[in-house]
């Protein structure tokens, strides 16, 4: 385990409740040493995406080692793309839950931004059966 800054993770969903519960699940599996924050729903709590919520979540989890954004679909993806910063804030194109867990477990070991992104993307080919 590295004691240095960890890669942060933001889970972006159309649903505020889904994003929060996904964070709870991820912390339950990967441990509470992982910097992971939810950014779900619009500013008034409806289904959709808020660029302000996502931007605030990035700031909250950024320890200086980079941030991985994991969007669900549609406007979550487009909003994430607006906030991308090559080399520091990157998007994982992965299944929402499986990708989040893969990324969080890797981030918890102190892995680099590139390694956390790769771990998330492993979820695309991970077979359940």
């Amino acid at each position: 385990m590295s004691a240095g800054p960890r890669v942060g993770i933001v889970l972006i969903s159309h649903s505020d409740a889904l994003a929060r519960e996904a964070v709870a699940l991820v912390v339950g599996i990967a441990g509470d040493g992982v910097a992971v924050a939810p950014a779900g729903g619009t500013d008034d709590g409806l289904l959709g995406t808020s660029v302000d919520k996502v931007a605030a979540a990035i700031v909250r989890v950024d320890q200086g080692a980079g941030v991985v954004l994991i969007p669900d679909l549609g406007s979550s993806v487009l909003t994430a793309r607006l906030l991308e910063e090559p080399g520091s804030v990157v998007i994982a194109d992965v299944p929402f839950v499986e990708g989040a867990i893969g990324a969080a477990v890797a981030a918890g070991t102190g892995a680099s931004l590139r390694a956390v992104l790769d771990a998330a993307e492993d979820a695309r080919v991970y077979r359940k059966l």
Partner: protein
Amino acid sequence: MDAAFFTAWIDEIARAVTAGRERLTRLDAAIGDADHGANLDRGFTAVREALAAKPPATPGAVLTLAGTTLIRKVGGASGPLYGTALRQMGAALGSAPEVTAGELAAALEAGVAGVRKLGGAEEGDKTMVDALAPAARALTAAVAGGLKDGEALAAARAAAEEGARTAVPLQARKGRASYLGERSAGHEDPGAASTVLILTALHTTATR
């Protein structure tokens, strides 16, 4: 065309989106999630308020503020997409106090490029790009052909309408409608329909 013209365009878009809200919602209910009318209405109402609260001095500043407000207020995919289009247009127009139709055409082309890059959609994917890209091409060609501003913007509007019509029989390959696969064919794309409203508003603003 000055800041007042572009502010009037945004006002006309807001009026047209409010008037067309139920139709956009109906189109989106058929192949999407039925929020396009409400999202755009909320977005452009917020844009109108932002412009009224602090009127920008240049066309570029009007469009940049409009785009930023859409991105922050819409909550659906149309916010980042139209917001990016307007911000790219604003950046292309720079800080000039007045712009020509030729400069507007170049800005619209930049807006289309921004939408394509962000959403990854090409013409034929049954999205707003099917109306937006032909409109930009038509405006560029009309200006190059020496048409007057009103006529050039009429050509852009007609191209958007034709593009939206051409996309009706297509199967969606991008956006929420793409989850429907072949069941999306035969429906008008709500994004293409709202692009027609926006281009129609531009023509209306220039000719009244």
